[in-house]
């Protein structure tokens, strides 16, 4: 443990288009809830839904 580096967790939101299935990963922002409809899809103009919210750890 003496030499283990400190880890920080970054929260991400994964949006998925309901129509074409296009996925977009971005940093989490307050007000994001799972299965909430968010923005228009970049590829087909459909509505995207928050599919996942998760944390990924990186070493400092």
């Amino acid at each position, binding site marked *: 443990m003496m030499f283990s580096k400190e880890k920080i*967790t970054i*929260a991400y939101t994964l949006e998925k288009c309901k129509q074409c299935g296009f996925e977009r990963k971005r940093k989490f922002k307050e007000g994001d809830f*799972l*299965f909430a409809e968010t923005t228009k899809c970049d590829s087909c103009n459909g509505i995207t839904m928050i599919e*996942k919210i998760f*944390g*990924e750890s990186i070493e400092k």
Partner: protein
Amino acid sequence: MRVTLIPSSDYTNDLIWIYLALILLDFTNIDFDQLFGTNDQSNPIMMLIWILPIFIFVLYGQRIQLAVTSGEIKKGIKKLDEYKTQSRTELIDYIKKNMNPKDDPTKKIDRFLDYFTIMPVDMDPNGIVSKVRHIVRAREDYSREHVRSLSPQTSDIELSKIQTLLEIATSLQMIYKVINHMYLTAKKQNNYPLILPLQMIMPFLLEEAEAMQKAIPAFKTCQPIGDGIGPMVVGKMMLDTKKESIAFQTVLGMTDYSERKLLLLKAEGPASTVGRPGDAVEKIVSKDRPDMIIMVDASLKMEGEESATTAQGFGAAIGGIGTERFQIEDIATKNNIPIFAIVVKQSVKEAITLMTKEIADKAENVRSQIYEMIDDNTKPGQTILLIGVGNTMGVQQ
């Protein structure tokens, strides 16, 4: 042992000196009796050097161990104190920022932090579960109203977050108080056996306390936690279904799957709540008896087990104090309904902090396991009750 020196022109001066010194020393001829002074009675200093530590360790051994052990425990207590203070400060700051109370809430919050619960007498265990449920629910309901009194216009989602943060701060304060009490008592009485259980449980408590401390940012920003995998799995299946509030902070959805009726139950998101699945199951069974109950929950992994692995089993997969589990088991037994369980394994820290990618990625796999379980164990025309157990913070339906 004699070593013959074979001089070589390559030897440096230093090597020659070391070599010569080794020749002069004869290790086979050491007189141990002479070295330690055991052959006669004329060396009292050597005798003291040997005998004195034995007496010291016999008479003061426990005190020495107490001093060494208490040093380690003191470090742990210092950490617990830091966690306790940080959680209290973060709670007060959060309330001031998000509830905008008229007066300074510090005094009231300190009073909330000192709330305690007296569990019912268990000398006669008959009917104890309903007594425990009553006490725990009364505590939850009244503390919610007390927090609301700080600023009555606060939304229910905000209130649930603050209530959870208050629970974290209260738990950290309680852990610190109990451990510090045990430590100080052991030190005061120089009681080594009293400090032993403390030394044993300290790593587990520190792990839990650290997990609680690290959970605070997730609760402040309403992010889904590892324990929310059950509601996440069921929540997605509830999208585009007819939903109704079936019990306090608990929602029921209905859909069809492969000529079967599917009743979907979870806590009402995205608030930080586990709902009241026991009450909900009681209501559902009285109206529409299901032929099978499936419970999806997070479960604690064992050391050595990989995180985010899934397992299937039988019985009510629900944690907590045990009252909800008792209620569900009781109803299922009386109505002869089989209970199946699917769990996603994770550590204590993963269960109460922001959901990891590995756990989130398992949701789809769990859904396909549910459908497979329904196909294998039920016939068309039957009704299945699917319960997503866990804290539904950040998970809508």
